């Protein structure tokens, strides 16, 4: 096997936000860095090319961020969505890191912009990237190249050579053996690996292989090759393989890379029925941005892993326009026939819902008093009678953004074997997200985790080769709460 002669201080495996943060930090510390991105250049960046913003703690208004979003509130939000399945010290480190990392991001060319129209609900909590994640990824790649990080595309890694929990070399798919003094794994979850997903989700009581009907919102390159390798090598892991950032998206989205535009934002404005033409959950439980992350799993539990969001003319113009046109009909019966559900059951469901809608003052910007009475499941807000033609239906399927199964880690980002941290093998991004996100999701937190652990892993990987980052110490000790 050919061994590459150049031996970098730090080998970064991956090419998304976390990997780039690691590479930049390690390079800033003075280490020589080689980055291996499995995708070709035009698909570089993993899921980061689809991201939109960074959830940021801040004590007072900061450029694009309004008001304040203190540490405690951020923590409570995270606690709520994860149902306690999180590691508080690590989560708080991520949260505090998010309050001070943006000057560094700007330095490497990332631009922020005021919240997008239709996304003002996160104006306080999330800093939006101008142009989105691909612009961020492009900026980081330009900066990495300018700083002298060696970048190789089309370079998937097949396995690692480990010795007593220490990194020795990476073996690429093409058979090249690349040695390095230290390594950061920033190569994502296993969401793109359909076979693994199928196995993880298994068969339901209807005999369906649930994951066969999943769509992957992001990259096709997160095959989980090294995640699998590390699990098999005995690394400590965290997370349940069926836990993921999973939202309900348009069923017509492409299998991979549908990204943000395939989401369906009209759920709370109408009702959602499954293949049997029955409602199955409170569509108006809370503001859609706080609920979109549970609907993927809800739809996954329905027969055929599919459902339809049904609205009438009154909802048009009140939600982010969908990328695909809805199925349109002038009567509800006609709509049922067009989407292929039983019209009689569909009408029963809709009639029961309509009859249960109580009078109230509709206000989509508040938790209003339009609710149902006497129908199960109830719709607790924004429940308006669906009676104004034309009617529209949007088909839903579960869309997996990224999986949470990953490497158990600590505040250093080190991979661990039998609870002993490696001194030169680190992980970042989706590979460690499960430490903070046991389940659930809230917008922008993936980037908070990826940026924090990416930078920390890069600094520590460089430090393990004798290269100390000149400035990060202060920022880190604040994040770590020292």
């Amino acid at each position, binding site marked *: 096997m050919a061994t590459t002669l150049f031996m970098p201080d730090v080998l970064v495996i991956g090419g998304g936000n976390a990997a780039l943060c690691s590479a930049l930090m390690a390079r800033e510390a003075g280490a020589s860095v080689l980055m291996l991105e499995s995708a070709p250049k035009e698909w570089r960046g993993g899921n980061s090319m689809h991201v939109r913003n960074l959830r940021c703690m801040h004590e007072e208004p900061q450029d694009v961020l309004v008001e304040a979003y203190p540490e405690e509130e951020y923590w409570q939000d995270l606690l709520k969505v994860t149902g306690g399945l999180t590691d508080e010290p690590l989560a708080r480190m991520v949260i505090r890191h998010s309050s001070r990392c943006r000057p560094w991001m700007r330095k490497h060319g990332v631009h922020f912009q005021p919240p997008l*129209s239709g996304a003002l609900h996160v104006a306080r909590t999330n800093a939006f*990237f*101008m142009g989105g994640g*691909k612009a961020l990824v*492009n900026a980081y790649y*330009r900066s990495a190249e300018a700083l002298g990080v060696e970048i190789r595309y089309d370079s998937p890694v097949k396995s690692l050579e480990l010795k007593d929990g220490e990194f020795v070399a990476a073996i690429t798919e093409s058979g090249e053996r690349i040695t390095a003094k230290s390594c950061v794994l920033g190569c994502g979850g296993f969401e793109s690996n359909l076979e693994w997903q199928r196995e993880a989700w298994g068969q339901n009581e209807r005999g369906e292989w649930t994951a066969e009907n999943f769509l992957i919102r992001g990259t096709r390159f997160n095959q989980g090759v090294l995640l699998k390798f590390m699990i098999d090598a005995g690394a400590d892991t965290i997370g349940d393989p069926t836990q993921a950032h999973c939202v309900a998206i348009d069923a017509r989205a492409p299998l991979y890379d549908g990204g943000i535009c395939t989401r369906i934002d009209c759920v709370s404005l109408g009702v959602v029925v499954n293949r049997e033409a029955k409602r199955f959950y409170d569509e108006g439980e809370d503001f859609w941005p706080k609920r979109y992350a549970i609907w993927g799993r809800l739809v996954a539990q329905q027969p055929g892993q599919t459902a339809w969001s049904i609205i009438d003319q009154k909802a048009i113009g009140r939600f*982010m326009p969908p*990328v695909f046109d809805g199925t349109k009909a002038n009567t509800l019966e006609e709509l049922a026939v067009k989407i292929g559900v039983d019209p009689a059951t569909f009408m029963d469901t809709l009639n029961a819902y309509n009859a249960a809608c109580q009078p109230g003052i509709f206000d989509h910007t508040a938790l209003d008093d339009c609710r149902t009475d006497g129908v199960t499941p109830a719709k607790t807000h924004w429940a308006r009678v669906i009676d104004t033609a034309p009617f529209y239906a949007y088909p839903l399927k579960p869309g997996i953004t990224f999986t949470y199964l990953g490497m158990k880690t600590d505040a250093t980002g080190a991979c661990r074997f039998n609870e002993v941290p490696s001194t030169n093998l680190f992980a970042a991004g989706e590979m460690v997200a499960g430490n903070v996100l046991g389940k659930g999701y809230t917008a922008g937190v993936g980037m908070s985790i990826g940026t924090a652990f990416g930078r920390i892993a890069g600094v520590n990987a460089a430090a393990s080769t004798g290269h100390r980052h000149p400035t990060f110490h202060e920022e880190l000790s604040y994040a770590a709460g020292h």
Partner: protein
Amino acid sequence: MPPVTDLEAPVVGGACEAGVNFADALTAGEAEIARIMQICNACRYCEGFCAVFPAMTRRLEFNKADTHYLANLCHNCGSCLYACQYAPPHEFAVNVPQAMARVRVRTYQDYTWPLAFGRLYERAGLTVALALSGGLALFMILAIAMNGRLIHEPLAGDFYVIFPHNFLALLFGVVFLFAMLALAVGVVKFWREVSPTRDGNLADIKAAAQARVPAVAEAVTDVARLRYLGGGHGDGCNEGDDAFTLWRRRFHHFTLYGFLLCFAATCVATLYHYLWNLYAPYGFSSAPVILGSLGGIGLIIGPIGLLWLNLKRDALRADVKQNAMDRGFIMLLLLVSATGFALLLLRDTRFMALWLAIHLGTVMALFLTLPYGKFAHGIFRSAALLKFNIEKRMPNRLGLGGE
């Protein structure tokens, strides 16, 4: 959403052949903008780059007039293409700058006056070549017909010995006024169809009236500063790749202000002549010569820079068919300034008449092609920016969740 492949063929009938009509079906190029905007409207990541995306978010559907409005708002800075998660090789094949560029040239054609002259855009290279050869021939012949020769004893820079002042003023005045008229007719037609108040809604008309003064002020600033060549963040446009550069804005500024200074030089000279009876030739330190020289320098640096950028621009976002139009206009500007300097340097020699004929011939070619070439982009884009600045001050009819 498969991309539209045949961009030339209209979707239904020959909608654009005889000018824009609301009832017409979209051409393939317009349909491509509508297709892409539906994707962009569901994404919106690029809202901070320019005016196109904020204008888009005020709409759910994109009719013919909308596509032309958005196409002319687009400055082809390229930011949105390199930032796009749906750009090729993604199957959505979103390429906003290219789709916009293809429709933009149709705007110039469809709103040309007289309409039949829209054809000239399709043969932009030939148009410039004919105008230039015609202009040169005209003044060579005139010089010989009026003076009997092109080479003469030095005349101390007195142009009017060769061509009488009133003759030149009349000839260029008529051509220039015609060019302005043609552009005005076109842009007024364009304005009417994309006007924020075209529905005749009373509340709209009121809101637009209130918005007019601040909107005009902001549109003028946008144009004067070439704000949208800054990329939204101020780092500039993309050229060959995803890196930003301010050189396109700078070269545009050289060109724009160079052109305006030359125009100012002509206006001042006209005032000198008619108001104060000060006749050319003017000294090197006179206002017309200083203004003209500064403008000429701008019109040398600017077009050379723009040509250089044009040649290295990423083909992915260009409409290569427009290269002739773009480069033809750039070359004409460069020729005007270069021949102007040659004339200034040689005006005291035996070659003044020759260079005067060459310079005037080039200027004539520029004037003749103003309404039928790339110059139109400045006019239509300014109109689109004014509309944008009015529209954004009007209440949004859409009430998306969370707003």
